[in-house]
């Protein structure tokens, strides 16, 4: 018995010494040039695959992946992901291909993954592979990227270029912003908020909140760091001074709009604060930092209200007011309110003095 214990102790001691030599003595070769030892890549990749398959949400929780979502997702991909995974018809740079593991070309990367699994990978990222996690604690946004990913294998180089085209503009950063928001701040994509109905004070506050990681959006938190900090003020000024554009063409349920009106005007129940007393329409002047919602896109309003209600939207210094206001909203309330505000003629909150 004694011999057994002594042997085991000796083996354990030797093992510890070997591990210490590797960690502290630098014996393990981390060189990407030499790659992994035989079999290690297979172990890592198989672990990765099974881990994703185990953890991905069921397919039933994946929202419908629309063309409009894909149009937003492709622009975010172009700004954030293309650098490593390239785009249809494009070859990744030699530098990217020299990574270990090297990021697969996007058309190969999405092969053999289902949308729910793609959503998991985009949101969580993959440890020790260089694949980053979604830079915000909000899962709903990743589906726009997934909507693009499920289309990417059939997408031509020209189609990709059209979708990611940036309109020419003189103001620094405006081309980039305008690729989603439009040059006048009212893009037709209903997942992209209209900016032409917002004030300078609110735009400044929002950009600061994205920069300070106080407001959560993987897409916008990337976007505000894509343009130089000194460009943000002039960009906010540009959008705050555009004429308010025409109403978007949309198909709204009149019943929902009417129910939303009673909620927004506090004519129903006593749990939900009257939206209009901060977001209009309101006969008196409102605080500049409150965003106007009149004419805002319905799907965008819905996603924001859900994020508020679920507590992961974040925001500027006044966001606690909205978090408390939204915490009792039911899904049906959110649908009604989004429809009501989308139905109003687009307008800024308080006219510039």
């Amino acid at each position: 018995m004694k011999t057994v214990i002594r042997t085991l102790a000796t083996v354990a001691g030797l093992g510890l010494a070997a591990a210490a030599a590797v960690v502290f003595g630098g014996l393990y070769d981390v060189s990407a040039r030499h790659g992994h030892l035989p079999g290690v890549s297979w172990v890592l990749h198989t672990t990765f695959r099974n881990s994703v398959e185990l953890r991905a949400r069921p397919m039933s929780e994946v929202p419908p992946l629309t063309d409009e979502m894909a149009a937003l997702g492709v622009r975010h991909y172009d700004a954030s992901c293309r650098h490593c995974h390239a785009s249809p018809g494009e070859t990744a740079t030699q530098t990217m291909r020299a990574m270990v593991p090297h990021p697969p070309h996007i058309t190969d990367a999405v092969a053999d993954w289902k949308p729910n699994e793609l959503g998991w990978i985009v949101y969580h990222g993959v440890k020790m592979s260089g694949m980053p996690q979604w830079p915000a604690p909000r899962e709903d946004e990743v589906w726009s990227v997934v909507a693009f990913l499920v289309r990417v294998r059939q997408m031509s180089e020209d189609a990709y270029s059209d979708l990611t085209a940036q309109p020419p503009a003189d103001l620094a950063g405006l081309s980039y912003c305008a690729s989603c928001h439009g040059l006048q701040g009212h893009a037709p994509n209903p997942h992209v908020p209209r900016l032409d109905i917002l004030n300078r004070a609110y735009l400044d506050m929002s950009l600061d909140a994205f920069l300070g990681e106080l407001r959560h959006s993987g897409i916008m938190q990337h976007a505000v760091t894509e343009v130089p900090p000194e460009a943000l003020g002039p960009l906010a000024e540009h959008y705050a001074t555009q004429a308010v554009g025409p109403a978007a063409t949309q198909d709204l349920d009149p019943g929902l709009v009417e129910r939303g009106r009673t909620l927004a005007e506090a004519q129903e129940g006593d749990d939900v604060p009257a939206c209009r007393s901060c977001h209009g329409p309101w006969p008196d002047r409102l605080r500049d930092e409150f965003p106007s919602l009149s004419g805002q896109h319905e799907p965008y309003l819905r996603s924001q209200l859900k994020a508020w209600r679920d507590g992961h939207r974040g925001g500027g210094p006044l966001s606690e007011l909205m978090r408390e206001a939204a915490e009792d909203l039911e899904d049906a309330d959110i649908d009604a309110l989004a429809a009501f505000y989308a139905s109003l003629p687009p307008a800024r909150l308080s006219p510039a003095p």
Partner: protein
Amino acid sequence: MRRNIFGWWAARVGLLIGPAGCAGNQSMFSPAGVDALATLNLFWVMLAGAVVIWFALNGLFLYVTRIHVGKMSRRLAEAVIIGGGILFPLVVLSALLIYSLPMMGEQRAPDDGLRVRVTAERWWWRVEYWPDGATAPIIAANELRLPVDQRTEIELTAGEVIHSFWIPALGGKTDMFPGRITRMTLAPSETGTFRGQCAEFCGLSHALMAIPAVIMEPAAFDGWLREQALPATSSGAGRAVFLREGCGACHAVRGTPAAGRVGPDLTHLGGRTALAAGILPMTADALRAWITNPEAIKPGAEMPAYDHLDESDLAALAAYLMGLK
């Protein structure tokens, strides 16, 4: 009006039980209403009955264990056990029951025309006045006003959790349930301001949920109620602050666009006796403290902190709210 037959004793025994706790404007020992007086008389009668039974039974125990020690005739033993142990308590308790049963009806006597609905929220009170024939209520909050020498029906309900309505100087205690209405009637017999308190644990700020009850002469009450029905008259710079900062999302001030229903109606806030459901004086300083950090005053309160308002806005807002008479 029934006379306070035990008033003299009430004061003295009250002093014995707890010098500070049993007098004042939140005490059933200082009744100011028909129902509170009935409750107090019931208490004294019950106490007297209990004292009689206690002395009689302990007297008998003393008699058989200390005075009449040793063998007892069968006749005497049966008299002690059956007479003292069964018949005597039965007679006293039955008398108490017969005395007290009719009171249940009196507690629900019909009202003289006014109906008030009180809804308990966390942690404040919605109060709606329905005068005879009214088709819509006159809405107030956090204060109950009643005319003296008239009987008023009190309808009780609650928002999210169970509360209990109790103004000891005016009457008994009745629970308040979400989705159900319970009823009581109150007939105050003295004018003055009394204090009620939520009497059922209802969460974090249960102890900070009081309601002042102001009993007025009928003519003064009618005048007050007419004024409550009118829109607000206050103006000044604070009005713009109130309407700009989104206060109207939760609070109504009739006569302005503010029509929120989440929090108390503020149309005549400045005319109330207290702030924040009976826990702060109605002063500009108290209003400012409340607006900038309600959580510090009433933990768990739904109102968010408006600590981003600057000095001049706060001062204007407090002045405006104090002016809502």
